[in-house]
Structures are given as C-alpha cells and as structure tokens.
C-alpha cells in the first residue's frame, strides 16, 4: 500500500519533468555582479516530441516570448504555403506599383 502511494507521488512527478522544458533567453554578456549569464526571459512549456515540434516567437528581450508546443507537420505545410503567398505578394505589389 505504501509502495503504491509512493509510486503515485513520484511517477507523475518524473513523467512531468520529462515532458516539459524551460525556454530561457539569456544575454551573452555575464551579469557583472554574479558573473553568470543574465536570464532575460523564461517560459516553461511542453518539450518537443517524436512527431511534434515547438515554435518560439521572440519579440525582443523585454517581452516574454510566445511558446507554441505540439505543432505538427501540417503547420509546416501551412507555413510553406504562406512563404509562397508572401513571395507572390511581393511580385504582385511590384507589378501594381510599376
């Protein structure tokens, strides 16, 4: 019974530690006081998996980055289509302003 209780406490804890990750933005120049790299932002979210990836959008050191976990291959298809559309928009804009 005690063993079961222990497992109920620790197993989720360990599993939780494995499936999350910390996304930390650091300054390359060390903090003059501590001598260690200065942490500017930190976000905890899911870690990338076998068939999913994580997208971090960085807005600059003063703003907390957006972390999107669990993106899959369909996101890549959408983004590739968007890159193509962006390229077409550039050409279209050039044609219209000529």
């Amino acid at each position, binding site marked *: 019974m005690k063993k079961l209780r222990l497992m109920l406490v620790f197993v989720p804890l360990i599993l939780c*530690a494995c499936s999350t990750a910390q996304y930390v933005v650091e300054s*390359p120049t060390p903090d003059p006081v501590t001598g260690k*790299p200065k942490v500017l932002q930190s976000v905890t979210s899911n870690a990338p998996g076998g068939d*999913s990836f994580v997208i971090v*959008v960085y807005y600059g050191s003063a703003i907390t980055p957006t972390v999107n976990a669990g993106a899959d291959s369909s996101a890549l298809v959408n*983004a590739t289509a968007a*890159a193509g*559309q962006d390229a077409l928009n550039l*050409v279209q804009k*050039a044609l219209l302003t000529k």
Partner: protein
Amino acid sequence: MWKLRRRALSILAVAVIVSGCGHTLGQATLTDGNVLLVQGQGSDVSTQVQCLTPDTITKLTGSNISPGAPKQDCYTVVSISAKSSNISNAITQYVQQSTQLQAQGSLIASAVAGKAAPAAAAVSAATAAAPAPAASPATAGVVSAIVSAAVSNPANPTGAAQAAASNAAPRLAPNAKSSAQQQLQNLSTTASDPSIAGALRAAAGQLQ
C-alpha cells in the same frame, strides 16, 4: 529498512527532477545576439532560426502575434524539434525551401520594379552560386539563409548574418563549410551595400 528505502527513493526522484531542470538540450543564437536555451530532461534538440512575417507566423502557430509586441515586418521564430525525430528533417527542408522561395520572390519583384536593389542582387548571386562544384544543397540553403537574414534585418545585418551562420555551422560538413565561406566572401565583393558586404564577411568568419 523501509524508511531508508523510502528516503533513497525520494532522493533519487528529486535528483532526477533537479537534473532535468538544469540540463541544456539545445540552444540558438537570436538575431539580437541573445541566446535561447532549451533546458529539461530528454533527448537533445535541434533549432532553426528564421525571420517570419506575422501572416506566416499565424499560419505556422495557429495564433496571432502577441498584442504587446512592437510592429515589425518580420519576427524571430525558433523551431525546436527532437534531434532524433523525423520532423527535424522536415523542418530543415522547410526552412531551406521557404528561404529560397522568399529570396526568389524578392528577386523577381526587384526585376519587375526595375530596381537593382543590393539585397536582390546579393540574393540573386547566392542563388546563382548554389550549383558551384563543391556546393551541396545544404550549402546553398545556408548561404541563401545567411544572405536573407542580413538583407531582411537592415538595423543589424551583421548580427543577423552571424546568428544565421552560427545556427547553420553545426549542420555543415567541413568541406561544405569552406564552400559556404568562399561563396559568402565572393558575394561580399559584389554587394554594393557596405553593411551587407561586412555582414557577409562576418558570417563567413563565424562559420570557421
């Protein structure tokens, strides 16, 4: 005895959790020189840095840009995947293809507009340099990505080009690296914008 075993188990569990928090799985240099670290427990990760338009980010993530973010033409996006996963290769392919697509779009737009923009000229040269004998598709993609990073960040072309180079360097074999360096050096002599030329030279140095 039971108490001892329980204590040992507790220590083990805490050690696993603490070590999981402190272990760096991967990192990426951002366009402003800061570093993004991925920490946790599990397999190492690979990272890809791009500057994407808000529209593309919405398509990629399914959500809009943070409302508090300053307005920019493109934002730094880092794609993070487990190194051993299949999706890691898919992301590398996507980044190379979309970067070349954007570069070609810029080039055609400049040609249509009849403007010999230094950015377009540099991108054109990068694309033309791709089939050089010692170059591989990976080299061409890297050179193109570095050039695009430099020209799409007029505020800090050197930082952007160096960040792109430092992200790409681990993926390149030594001969591909020297080929990419040579192409960047050649391009730096043809770029009419001195800041782009300097950025390309700095990126070539970063690949060493």
